[in-house]
Every structure is written in C-alpha cells, then in structure tokens.
C-alpha cells in the first residue's frame, strides 16, 4: 500500500500519470491495445457512471492501470503489475467519476476505456480528500445518505456502491477492482458499517432525471 501510494505520488510529481508508459522490455498488453482518447464532458449523471463501469465488469485488474476492453475476461491474468489489462480500485473510480488528471481539478473528462490512465488519486487520497478536491467525505454512511455511485474508501481499497437496493441481509453490492485473481466485478460487501471505510461522493453530478426533470417521483401504487 505504501509502495503504491509513493509510486503514485511520484508519478503525480513528475506529471507522467496521465498516460502510463509501457515499461516492459517486450511489448505489453497496454502498448498493443491502448491509446489516448478523452474529451471534456458536462451533464454527467450517476447513471452515466454506472453505464461506464458496467463495461469494465469482468475485465482484468492491474495495479496502477486504467485500460481495458469489453470481452468479459482478464486478458493478462496473473500479471498485476506488468502493463496489463484493467484498472486498480482507485483507477476504476477515477475513470468512472470522470475526474481530471491534475490533482484537485474540478470538472469532468470522459476517458475512453482504452486510454491507460490511472489518475492522481490513490485509495488513501479518496479516503481523506482535501476540501478543494472534486469529491468529499460524507457525514455518515447510512442508507438515507448514500446514493449509488458513491464510494466506500479506506486506506488501501475503494469500491463503488452499485445499487440503491438493499438485500435482506444488509450487505451492499459494490463494483470494485478486487485484485488480480478476480479483476473487476460486483460483489456483496460489508463496508457500510466498517469504520475503516469512509463514504465518499463525487461533486457536481447532474441529476439522473436530466434533461427531463419533473420533480420527485411519487411511489407507484400496486392496487
């Protein structure tokens, strides 16, 4: 974890994190498959973020990574640190939330899934954001407070709340990059009452109802 944070910090300082280079002597999966493609975005909704993450499900995991395809398998299994396929947990959150690549910058950028970018934030920085950053710590993690595509973050890991629905057992469905063995997926987790985790929210979402907002929806009565 410390190694990860230090390495990411170094990359931030050198300004080289926007596109991780292929460092392996031989051609890496990233160098063979990934390219730069991004665009400033606006009116980004939580539903857009969820749709984006849905493409990443079942893809690989790569420490410090951020490039994946959509074939529902890990193309570089057993290679978590070799410019292979997939994001790590904080890289997935960075791209899903359309954060900008400079620390603390506001606004949204849509990143192509094929762009190998991790972003400047580790799970530790998501867990303890500065007030000027484009995400903040929630006052609590109750069901009344959290909304899907909020995150639960601790020092070492972060996952995205996948749905508002609550199973009968009180767990949450979390979209997360779980590690090299299992890549990106949705898993039942118990982060909500685990005080290692903080609830984190991206700022400035556009409401899901946009552009046809008509006020709160009333419950639909089943006669």
């Amino acid at each position, binding site marked *: *974890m410390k190694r990860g944070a230090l390495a990411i910090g170094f990359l931030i300082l050198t300004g080289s994190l926007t596109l991780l280079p292929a460092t392996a002597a031989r051609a890496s999966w990233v160098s063979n498959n990934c390219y730069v*493609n991004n665009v400033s*975005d*606006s*009116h*980004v909704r939580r*539903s*857009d973020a*969820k*749709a*984006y993450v*849905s*493409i990443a*499900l*079942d893809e690989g995991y790569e420490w410090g990574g951020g490039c994946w*395809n*959509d074939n*529902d398998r890990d193309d570089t299994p057993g290679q*978590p640190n070799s410019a292979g396929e997939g994001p*790590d947990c*904080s*890289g997935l959150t960075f791209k899903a939330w359309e954060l900008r690549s400079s620390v603390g910058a506001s606004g949204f950028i*849509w990143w*192509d899934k094929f762009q190998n970018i991790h972003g400047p934030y*580790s*799970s530790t920085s998501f867990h303890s954001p500065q007030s000027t950053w484009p995400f903040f710590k929630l006052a609590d*993690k109750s*069901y009344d407070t959290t909304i*899907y595509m909020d995150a639960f973050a601790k020092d*070492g*890991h972060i996952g995205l709340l996948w749905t*508002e*629905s*609550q199973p*009968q*057992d*009180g*767990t949450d*469905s979390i979209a*997360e990059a*779980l*590690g*090299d063995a*299992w890549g990106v*997926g*949705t*898993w*039942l987790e*118990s982060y*909500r*009452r*685990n*005080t290692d985790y903080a609830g984190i929210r991206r700022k400035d979402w556009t409401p*899901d109802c946009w552009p046809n907002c008509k006020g709160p*929806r009333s*419950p*639909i*009565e*089943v*006669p």
Partner: protein
Amino acid sequence: MRRRGRVVAVLAALLGAGSLAWAIPATAGGIPLSAPVGSIGARARPHLGLTYTPPVLVRAGEPVSVPVDAACLTVGGTECSATVTVAARAGAAGWSRASAAAGAFLRFDLTAPAARALEGGAASGSVAFTVSARAGGAAAVALGTEATPLRFYVTRRMPVVSVPAVPFGHAAAGRTTLYLPWGSGPEAAGVAIGNESLTLGPSSFTVDRGGLTYVLDGLQQRLAVFRGSSLVRAVGVGRVSPDADVALAPMGEAFVSSSDGGSDQRAVAVRRVTRGASGIDSSQLIGHGIPAQLDAGTGVPRVRLLPEDEWRSAPSGQSSLTVGRLLPGGAELLSVVRGGSVRLGTVVRGSVRDAVELRFGTDLGELALAAPFGSNGYVVVVHVASDHPAADQYQAVVVRDGRVVSTFAIARADYARSAPLSRFRLGPDGALYQLASSSDGVRVVRFDLGGVA
C-alpha cells in the same frame, strides 16, 4: 453526453466488425434470456439490470414500499429507456399490476396487496409478486414469475424486543480452535495481499458435529479439514470465487458454491465434496446472479442469489424459490435487517410463527448470521457501528420467548476479506464460531452462547 456518443460511434467504426467487443451480454437479473450469452443476437441487445429491496416480513397495517432500481444500458454503455412492472397477488384476488419508466429511485407501493393478505381475519399471510423490466429490442428481465413468484409475509403479531447496547471495545475474547499462519502448504492458509485492492483470504468455513473445522482456502484451491490445528484431509476444489461458500448437510456431506465471474450475470454452481476421499462431484448450476449464501441444512444445497434475493436449489431453478432459508422439517426462516431493526420469523405451512423484531439503538450493517436457537428462539449476529466516535463491532444476540437471553460483542477481525455472510457459524454444539483474520494468519474462534440451546 452527445460528444461521448460520437466518440463511441467513431471507435465502434474503427473496430469495424468487432462489434462483440462493445456488446454487453443480454442476460441480466439472474434470469437467462432466450438467446444464449455470446450469440451475436443476444449480445446486440440492451443490457437490463434490475434490483429491488425485498420486504421479507412486514407488520399488519404498515406501509409496504418496495424500491426498485432498473438500469437499461445500450451496447455502447449509454442509457436506454425501459419500463418496469410490479405485479402482486394476495388472498383470493387475481394479479394486479403497476408500471413506470425505468430508472433509479423507483418505489412501488404494495400496501394494498399486503392488506388483502390478511382478509378474513388471518393472523398472517403472504403476498406473491414479480418485478420485471422490458426495453426495446425485446430485451426483458424478470425477478420471479407468476408461476414461481417472489414473496413477502405479513403478520399481525410481531413483538418488539429492545436489545441492550454493548459498549464498543468490550468484545468477548472467545477461544481459538484453529490457527493457520498465512502461507502455502497443508497447515497454512493462502492469502493475496492487496495493493490498491483487497487482501483476500479463505472465503468461508464451517464446523461439524465431530468437532472438525472446514476451511475453504480458495487461494490454495482446497477445502481443508482440521481437527484442532492439525490437517485431517484436504480436497482440491479448483479455482473458486472470492464469494465461494461451504455448507454441510445433516449427514455430513460438504457442498461448495462458487461463481464464474464478477458480473451480475455470473453463473453460480454447487459441487458436492466427496467425503473421506480426494474428490469432488461435477457441478450443478444453481442459476445466474450474485451468490449471497449457501445452505445445505435440509440435505439439498440451496443458494440465496441476488437480485431475486431468494433461495433456490438446482436444477429446478425458480421452481423452488423461497424468501427464507429452508429448515429441516420444511419450515422457513425469515430474516431481514432494515435500519436499526432485525426481523425474524418462522413460516410453517404458509403461516408466520414466532415473529419478533429486535430493535437496536443504532443503524445496523449486515446480518452476519441468523439461525433458529432451541425452541422458540433465534440467534443473530449483526454488525453495529458508531459514526462519532468511529467504532464498529459485531453483536451476538440470543432471543427466546420475546426476551433477550444473552448478548455480547465480538470484535471485527477481517485483515483478509472473507465472504461477508461466511464469517460466523452456529456450530452443532450450540456455540458460535467466527472466521477471524489478522496480519499473521487466520483463526476460528469459538464463543459460548451460554448453554441455552
């Protein structure tokens, strides 16, 4: 948004005929659609994701609101429109329905069907219901069908029992019955250290009548059986998922459930581990979805799968859905946690018995264990927490005849992730067992429940 659409279109063109790379499987919500995953026709359809919050057990006269979260995504990963329908049937009336445009934050009010469930003065009853969504391109998903519906129960009698709080930091010590250091080999437990990811360890465990402890050590691809900390035998189980679970049948057969991926369309299968030999049966497909728990207490393995959030067995699929866990003898254990309460009840021939609401002084996390305990009793383990100051622990509660018989706290010990609902087991000896982990290894810790079983 429009710019993003253009980018997707350009990249799709660049990929040319490789449209499969952009497609999303057309199965969702745990129910395979007509076309198999992987066929071009199926993958070209929108993806429909559908989840809901099950009521499980409600008190007569309460409003019954069912949140439904429906997401329709195109093959390019953008939103599409869909319609959600909830149908319900209770008492002698036929099915009634209501529909709305899909989206997050939908709520369906099933108060009227819940009232009909008690028509004629019945003490308890149930509401059958289904949740379905349909989008363009004939994509559809259904949770329950009219032939095999989802269900919740309504009861007139559900006394409230206040559970005393246990101060944070006052956890019971327990007694370690098994210790395995991290590592590889027969008497070690596999671990994958997280690095911007979770640290993973054994996903599940259980204990049997003979005092043996079964540890599902997925990173060493084995189900290891120990007496004390000595290995008795180990059976290779191959690659199992981080939510893999193990359960024992009454005659001692071990079953292992595992899934094949991390999407909400994953296939979940169960295998029987051959007792006393190094072997494992071929797998039986239970269904598609996110596995929450495995149980084999009736002798037949059953898995609670999301998003239906109901128990099912192989190979009959939905034909045997139950909202509660089946108990030997045919009864069904209902359990649900909402806010600061845990509701429990037992369904016997369609009627709810011994319903009780345990009310805690704080909002709750996961219900890590719920089980019958002696006559008219239950034992639960639930995750409790305080935001200010930040602290959390598990609280075990034994309740019988409408009163708390015993309660104590157990420290959270999850250095390595195990499946959230596989951290506690009620042993055949009436004791509570915890799968605990720390930086040096994994332990199974026994807690005496006071001999009240």
